[in-house]
């Protein structure tokens, strides 16, 4: 039975390794500076990047993490208050 727990631990970590391996194998070649800085090109044209999606994700996460801590009873720090003001002005 103890040996089974070894197997379970190994199997539990396996999916992460497999997923990372697949992502890197298929995607690593496309991670270039242009991927972060350029807008997507029309379908069929090579090149371009994902800057719109990356910025969109950052804005979303920024707004969410500014509002999240407000519902906790911890005192709002200057950082949080300025983050909320910043996100409201967007």
């Amino acid at each position, binding site marked *: 039975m103890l040996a089974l727990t070894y197997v379970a631990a190994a*199997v539990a970590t396996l*999916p992460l390794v497999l997923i990372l391996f697949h992502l890197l194998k298929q995607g690593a070649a496309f991670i270039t500076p242009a991927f972060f800085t350029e807008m997507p090109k029309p379908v069929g044209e090579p090149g371009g990047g994902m800057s719109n999606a990356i910025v969109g994700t950052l804005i979303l996460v920024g707004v969410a993490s500014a509002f999240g801590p407000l519902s906790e009873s911890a005192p709002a720090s200057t950082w949080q208050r300025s983050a909320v003001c910043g996100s409201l002005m967007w």
Partner: protein
Amino acid sequence: MTEATAKEVGSRSTKPAAEIPRLDLRALGDRAYQIAITAFAAAIPLLLILIAVSILAAAWPALTRSGLSFLTQSRWDVASGEFGAAPAIFGTVVSSAIALVIATPLALGASIFLSEIAPSWLRQPVAFLVDLLAAVPSVVYGLWGIFVLIPILRDPVGPFIRDTLHLGGIPLFAGPNYGYSMLAAGVILAIMILPYIAAVTREVLRAVPRSQREAALALGATRWETIRDAVIPYAKSGIVGGIILGLGRALGETMAVTMVIGNRPEISASLFAPGYTMASLIANEFSEATNDLHLSALMAVGAVLFLVTLIVNAIARWLVWQVARGPSR
């Protein structure tokens, strides 16, 4: 509080007028802060109630039109206005059940290994890797499911179960094997909920007092007997809580399941048959729902999903309470 300070507090109002505005302002600030904090805290349950009410209100036309057949009928025909959500409800429950069946033993085994058996240098890294599974976005799980898991289920796994194990005859493995299936959804969900169950179980096992283990070992129990008879019974309620937490995640999971389940509104006994879940039904059709009844029917599916999740959580609370009450049973 000493008498002197009490006196001082009491005499504050009689102090020179110049100091009063400053003190009042401070009290005002405290008060405003308290009100703001209370409002934010109250906003969370209020939000939940508001969501429930607005979903029910939007779902009302479809629910009154279909009645109970909304839960029991399998026909989902937008054109004729017939909405039976039974396949989606079935799919949600079955895919989550498959996920639990696969994930629970793995998570339990992994956390027993991590908290009881593993050498200390191995604990941190392996625990970190398992926890990291929770950080993978669900759409990435979906992509991996389409490009890696489904081809595997289609080729080595399907023929292995049918031809090598000769299980093709039983309904559970009958029918064509497209890869996009209830099984694929269950496996993806299992991987997604594994880190939650494992993390909770690990912490609960770690919280079991040393004396519990030492007593069992002193009685002559082997390492496995110690874990089985002294550690796990002590941690039972926490483990059940962790499993239910995983189940809650599995019921509501949308993106990854939608990508691999095949999205066919049918009830089939076969694990290889495509299915549908409530979450993926809403995700797939919401953007195309143009007439009011269709929209309302999707809202009704949302309400049922909400209800199922609530019921599962209620059962979970009850289970945890039951298990916690009688550790000797």
